[in-house]
């Protein structure tokens, strides 16, 4: 059966994330007082054919290792949705 997977890719906490910083710079005073630490990541969705949810997760993890994220600078979270 087909499982839909959502991968959330973020920069590691130790990596400066300039897009989030740029967003913070343009915040109006209304938001400046209540919004902080903006960090931009990316989300990738895909389907995988598997016999069970745990097998789907394994396949997704191996695909993620192959290309979806770069462990030098990023982390990844995978969920079956």
């Amino acid at each position, binding site marked *: 059966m087909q499982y839909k997977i959502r991968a959330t890719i973020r*920069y590691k906490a*130790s*990596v*400066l994330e*300039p*897009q989030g910083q*740029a967003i913070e710079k343009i915040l109006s005073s209304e938001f400046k007082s209540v919004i902080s630490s903006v960090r931009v990541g990316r989300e990738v969705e895909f389907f995988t054919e598997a016999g069970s949810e745990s097998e789907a997760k394994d396949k997704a993890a191996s695909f993620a290792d*192959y*290309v*979806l994220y*770069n462990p*030098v*600078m990023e982390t990844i979270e995978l969920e079956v949705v």
Partner: protein
Amino acid sequence: MKAAVIVFPGSNCDKDLQYALQQMGVQVTPVWHGDTVADKYDLICIPGGFSYGDYLRSGSLASRSKIMEQVKDWVKQGVPVLGICNGFQILTESGLLPGALLKNKTLKHICVDVDLKGHGIFSSSDFASYRIPVSHSEGNFYCSNEELDALKANDQIFFSYHEDINGSRDNIAGIVDKTKKVFGLMPHPERAFLKTADRERRSDGRLFFETLFNNIAS
């Protein structure tokens, strides 16, 4: 000397690089990424550009292409590799060089001539005042503290910017792997190869190739 210039969809500095290599007397073969290659080369070059539109992460999709398996085999055999700009990004993504190239901290594409400090094989007085162009959006070299220490301890940093232009750790502009055979740099020596293409009429780019060739030939 025989060199291959690997061409991906979106490579756009391959012709300039071929021209520079030919002017140096190198026999150059452009190699399409999908081709199977039986020939032996003395140097493999990965040119600049925007392979696969820089989708996902710059260099990431090209680094998973068939030809990069071949490049890894060549590296195991000790064949030198040179990656310029997007070529550098492809080399880090493929694991042949450590670290990663992030978005410039300014979030802007930078296209300027930059002053570089040369180290290792590029530390002679010829490189005391050295200036070639950069043109990149993702040239911000990142690596862990441990990797940075290792790069320094093994003399793997061969170019650094005089000034911080993109947020790179220690202003790193170019590194070589531990075997001192796989070179990656963000600046473009091939774009400052001819005196007519060099704003200061010096041809600093030619000096890069001369020095590199002397080193890999020895």
